[in-house]
């Protein structure tokens, strides 16, 4: 590894431009990755504050702080912002930073489009947030936007639709770029079956994105024409069908769930082998399992709608297909456990989050399996049990994987080791509070509390209060995360190129911090 000075001299023309222009006009995958990650961190806090408004109102029965209409706006905006603003952009940010370095490419295949796909996001996000200040309030019909209720939205309605269009546009361009990069720019010798799993999971995710984001765009466009141009796609009085929206939405929505979790699987599959100091168990079965999950994701959508009154044959089909997902998902979990088995493990913060991911995501998987059983789902559906389920897979699943990834690659990005002691504090505070937050929601749902309720019967008070305590503890713990990142960016112990003793892969062969341009000459992969 060359020293910082010689690198500087040798690659003077590679230095990034200074100031605002660097970020506005950048076509560098690392800069764009950083922008995505910062954007998603900001959105995580915006959506998190909304969640705390929800949990504060639910501290006790009755209406204390916010009107039920605003409460509904909070649940709606929280969902939209966390899905489209926090989780998805975070994974695209990781993809931007890591995929070129992992496959030995100098940059993304389409750098200008890369810039554009990012810079759409802040505008789409701002447009969505601006609805909070509009006549009639922000959208309050749930992030799923079911008609006819969503058509009662006030002036915010077209802004909701156009921001979803823009967010989708950004995702589609990001996905095209990722596919083009992976298929065209791998270093010599980097065959598909040698790619790191993070690259594999993103390749499959990108195909899912291209397949389903246009479907969402179509669905919301039909809402738009129903509201303003006199069509009746979803209005039974005009010959339409409100349930058709749900079919179209969930044809997007279920693959969307895997869009948010497959890259997380990829992250975990990178981290566990590193800290177990042992190769990933069952590499090829991991790839096949990911592909199977992606395929199944297209034929299970109506399990979100068991209560809409489908024919028996339909209910049976979607129940069986959904249960099948447990098989490849199980294979993944077993492979991770087998990777840990007889390794020589250490438990730095990324590994702690990764192990917590495996356990807590599996708990979310169990409740998912329970929800798949249609006759039982008639009880679970739209209750807090569902809220608990999808927060286990999205918070302790996707978000924990993002935390793990940030800690794992932060030394590579910044050139400094993060503060391990504070990282561990962040982990333990998060993992305890997140369970205080979400575990009691299983009880609430089973005991009969519906989701999206601004107010509830008194017997649900106790567990709601536990959940609210957990929510504030979890929310505040994330301030520590920001501080750890801030501190690591500012300085700290110098990171080596390999950073972690057991780390393997091309990104660990370049210096830390990774130079502005890496792999100008393709590396040779054996």
């Amino acid at each position: 590894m060359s020293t910082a000075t010689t690198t500087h001299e040798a690659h003077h023309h590679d230095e990034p431009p200074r100031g605002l222009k660097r970020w506005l006009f950048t076509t560098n995958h690392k800069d764009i990755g950083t922008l995505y990650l910062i954007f998603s961190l900001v959105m995580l806090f915006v959506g998190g504050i909304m969640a705390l408004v929800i949990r504060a109102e639910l501290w006790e029965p009755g209406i204390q702080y916010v009107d039920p209409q605003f409460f509904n706006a909070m649940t709606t905006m929280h969902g939209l912002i966390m899905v489209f603003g926090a989780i998805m952009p975070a994974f695209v940010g990781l993809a931007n930073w890591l995929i070129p370095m992992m496959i030995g490419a100098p940059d993304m295949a389409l750098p200008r489009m890369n810039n554009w796909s990012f810079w759409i996001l802040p505008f789409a996000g701002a447009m969505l947030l601006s609805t909070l200040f509009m006549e009639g309030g922000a959208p309050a019909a749930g992030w799923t936007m079911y008609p006819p209720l969503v058509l009662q939205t006030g002036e915010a309605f077209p802004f909701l639709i156009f921001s979803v269009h823009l967010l989708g546009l950004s995702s589609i361009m990001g996905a095209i770029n990722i596919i083009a990069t992976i298929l065209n720019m791998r270093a010599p010798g980097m065959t598909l079956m040698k790619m790191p799993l993070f690259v594999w999971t993103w390749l499959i995710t990108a195909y899912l994105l291209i397949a389903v984001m246009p479907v969402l765009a179509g669905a919301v466009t039909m809402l738009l024409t129903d509201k303003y141009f006199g069509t009746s796609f979803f209005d039974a009085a005009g010959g339409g069908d409100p349930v058709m929206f749900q079919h179209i939405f969930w044809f997007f929505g279920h693959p969307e769930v895997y869009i948010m979790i497959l890259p997380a699987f990829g992250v975990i599959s990178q981290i566990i082998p590193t800290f177990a100091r042992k190769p990933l168990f069952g590499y090829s079965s991991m790839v096949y399992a990911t592909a199977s999950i992606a395929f199944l994701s297209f034929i299970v959508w109506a399990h979100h709608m068991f209560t809409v009154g489908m024919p028996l044959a339909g209910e049976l089909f979607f129940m069986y297909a959904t249960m099948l997902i447990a098989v490849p998902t199980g294979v993944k979990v077993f492979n991770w456990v087998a990777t840990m088995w007889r390794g020589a493990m250490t438990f730095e913060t990324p590994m702690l989050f990764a192990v917590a991911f495996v356990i807590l995501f599996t708990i979310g998987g169990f409740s998912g399996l329970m929800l798949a059983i249609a006759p039982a789902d008639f009880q679970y559906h739209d209750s807090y049990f569902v809220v608990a389920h999808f927060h286990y897979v999205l918070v302790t699943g996707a978000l924990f994987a993002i935390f793990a990834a940030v800690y794992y690659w932060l030394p590579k990005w910044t050139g400094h080791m993060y503060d391990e002691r504070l990282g561990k504090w962040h982990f333990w505070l998060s993992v305890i509070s997140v369970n205080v937050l979400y575990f009691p929601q299983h009880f609430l749902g089973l005991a009969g509390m519906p989701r999206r309720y601004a107010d509830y019967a008194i017997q649900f008070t106790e567990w709601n209060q536990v959940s609210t305590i957990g929510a504030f503890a979890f929310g505040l713990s994330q301030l520590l995360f920001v501080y750890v990142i801030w501190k690591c960016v500012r300085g700290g112990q110098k990171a080596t190129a390999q950073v972690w003793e057991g780390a393997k892969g091309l990104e660990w062969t370049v210096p830390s911090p990774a130079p502005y341009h890496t792999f100008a000459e393709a590396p040779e992969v054996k």
Partner: protein
Amino acid sequence: MSAKKTTRRLALTLLLSAPAAALAGAGSGWGLLNLPEGVTPISREAYDLHMLILWICVAIGVVVFGAIFVSILRHRKSRGVQPAQFHESTAIEVVWTIIPFLILVGMAVPATKALIAMEDTSNPDLTIKVTGYQWKWRYDYLDEGIGFFSNLATPEEQIYGDAPKGEHYLQEVDNPLVIPVGKKVRILLTANDVIHAWWVPALGGKKDAIPGFVNEWWVRVDEPGVYRGECAELCGRGHAYMPIVVEARPEAEYRQWVAQRKAAAEAEKAAATKTWSRDELMARGEAVYRKSCAACHQANGEGVPGVFPALKGGRITTGPVREHIEIVLRGKPGTAMAAFGPQLSDVDLAAVITYERNAWGNDTGDVVQPADIAAAR
């Protein structure tokens, strides 16, 4: 989950919940941890399946999490172990593909049986049509020719903390759904405005009520009692305020109740033909307003700015009477303002419009009679 982790979580939960328990006094909600077994054949099917799958998941969890924790304890670098280098075994992959598949087949068989039983709504003893409205339910007994609305009975003072909350806060209604014990009741579900869902946990589940479509569900309650539930599909501002109360009564009591209902309906018809005094209309109008209008326009008539218009000094409520009657009768398409013509009787409509035109200092002095409504319909 390992014992260690469970203990940690339990200890923490107890620690954190101590102040909450002190606040809540009796703390009656702590024991609500599981699905109720319920009182219908369907609810028992759902409960049995729920417990079966739950225990299978617990068993798998013990094995998988057990392996993780053994690995964490034993296969750590600090114990000086050398990492093994195995990383592939087709045989093992096949085994842990096949075994879960067989477990799933084991789950699918009872689930299929239960689902077939649940969807069998044939040969009912009676049929009740349930219609969801923003934000109340209407029950029509198709065999008896009676029908009525069921509104939240919890007073607004309790919701906004001006009065102590009652035992059945938000789970009480003015007119419960009354059904006979031991009879197969077919429930037909639809909605008037947006999608709702009718959920009574003790009766085994929920079905969506969708405008323009009719869904089916059935219940057979074996024990007399009162069973409470709620709307389970987001339906707007009053989503949490349209509970369901089902009273299962022995056959004889049920028949008696039906007779009373029919007599009350006759009396209501007679009331529409007489001329009402202003005071009578105002008193009745206030009651109707609280039930049918206050959820949006608020008890004080001030509405919610930007969402629900104020009626206090409002354009419609102080303008021409005819326009006021029109909008209440037919609603305003594209907004949450429903058509109340099909929902309320002529007397109730006359009373509530009179009330709205004279309350909160509107003081138009107008009195609307049931006959005016009948003429406008």
